C-alpha cells in the first residue's frame, strides 16, 4: 500500500500540474498548438482522476479528452482553414 503522506503529495502535485496545464491551454494563441496543449491537458486530467481513485473516469477522460475531442477540433480547424483560403 502507498502511504497516506505520499498519496497526499501525489494529489497536490497533480492538482498543481492540472492548474498549470489549464493556464497553458488558455495562454496558447496558435490554434493547432492550443489543440495539442488541450490534448496534453486531457492526459493530465486523466492522471488526476487516477490519483483520486476513479479509474473508470480516468478511462473516459483519456478517450474523450486526449483522443476524441482533439481530433474533432483538428478536423474543424482544417475545414475552417480551407474556407479562409
Amino acid at each position, binding site marked *: 500500500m502507498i502511504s497516506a503522506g505520499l498519496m497526499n503529495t501525489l494529489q497536490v502535485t497533480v492538482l498543481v500540474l492540472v492548474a498549470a496545464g489549464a493556464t497553458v491551454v488558455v495562454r496558447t494563441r496558435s490554434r493547432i498548438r492550443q489543440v495539442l496543449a488541450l490534448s496534453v491537458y486531457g492526459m493530465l486530467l486523466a492522471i488526476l482522476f487516477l490519483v483520486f481513485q476513479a*479509474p*473508470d473516469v480516468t*478511462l*473516459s477522460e483519456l*478517450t474523450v479528452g486526449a483522443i*476524441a475531442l482533439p*481530433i*474533432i477540433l483538428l478536423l474543424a480547424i482544417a*475545414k475552417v482553414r*480551407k474556407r479562409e483560403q
Partner: protein
Amino acid sequence: MTARQRLWFFAIAAAGLVACLLWAFTGLPGFGNYPGPYGQEILRQAVAQTHATGVVSAINFEYRGFDTVGEEFILFTAAAGMSVVLRRLRKERQTEPVDEAKTRTIPATSSAVRIAALLLVGPTAVLGWWLASHAQTSPSGGFQGGVILASAFILIYLAGEFLTFRRLSPVALLDAVEAAGAGGFVAIGLAAIAMNLPFLDNYLPLGQYPGAISSSGTIALISFFVGIEVAAAFTAIIGELLEQTLLRSA
C-alpha cells in the same frame, strides 16, 4: 466609466466573490469525506446483488440504468444531428484538392507515422473490444471501449488514406450498428417489462460467482450494446468531419 473606475468596480466585486467563496468553503465536508449514505450502502451490497466486481458498471447499467439510457441517447442524437447538419448540400460537390500555393511543399506522411499507426490498429481494436466486454469485472465499460474501438478506425485513416477508412466503415453499416446498439439497450429494458418486471430489471442468470466473465446478467450485455453504439457513433462523427474537409462549396 473611466478605466480607473472600472478597475475599482472589479476590485470590489472580486473581493466580494472571494469572501463569499471562502465562507462557502468552510461549510464543505472535509477533503475526501463523503457523508452520503448511498455510496457505502452500494459498496456493501453491489457485488452480492449483481455478481459484478466492476461496481461502477453495476451502478451505471443496473442501479441507475434508466439514467444511462438517457445518456446513451445524448450521443445517439449528437451523431444524428451531426449527419443532418453536415449533410451534403445541393450546391456542394466533392472536388480534387487543388494546390493554390504551388511554391509550398507539403510534407508527405512519413513512413514512420504510417507504420506506427498500422502497428497500433490491432492492439487498439483488441483493447477497445476487451474494455467493452469486461465491464462486469473491471472499471471499464462500453463507453470507454467504444471510443477506443473508434480510434482504431482513425488510426487506419492515419496509416492509409481516407478511401480505405471509408471502405472499412461504410455509412450505412455505421448507422445500422449505431441503431442496433442504442436499440439493443432499450430492448433489454423492455424485455423486462414483457416479463412483468421493472424496466431494465436484471433478469438474466447472474452466473455462479462474482468476477467471472459470464457473470452479472444484463450488465455485461448492456455494456456490449453501449460499446458498439459508441464505436459506431464516434466513427460516424469523425468520418463525417473528415468528409467535410474534402468538400467545398461550388
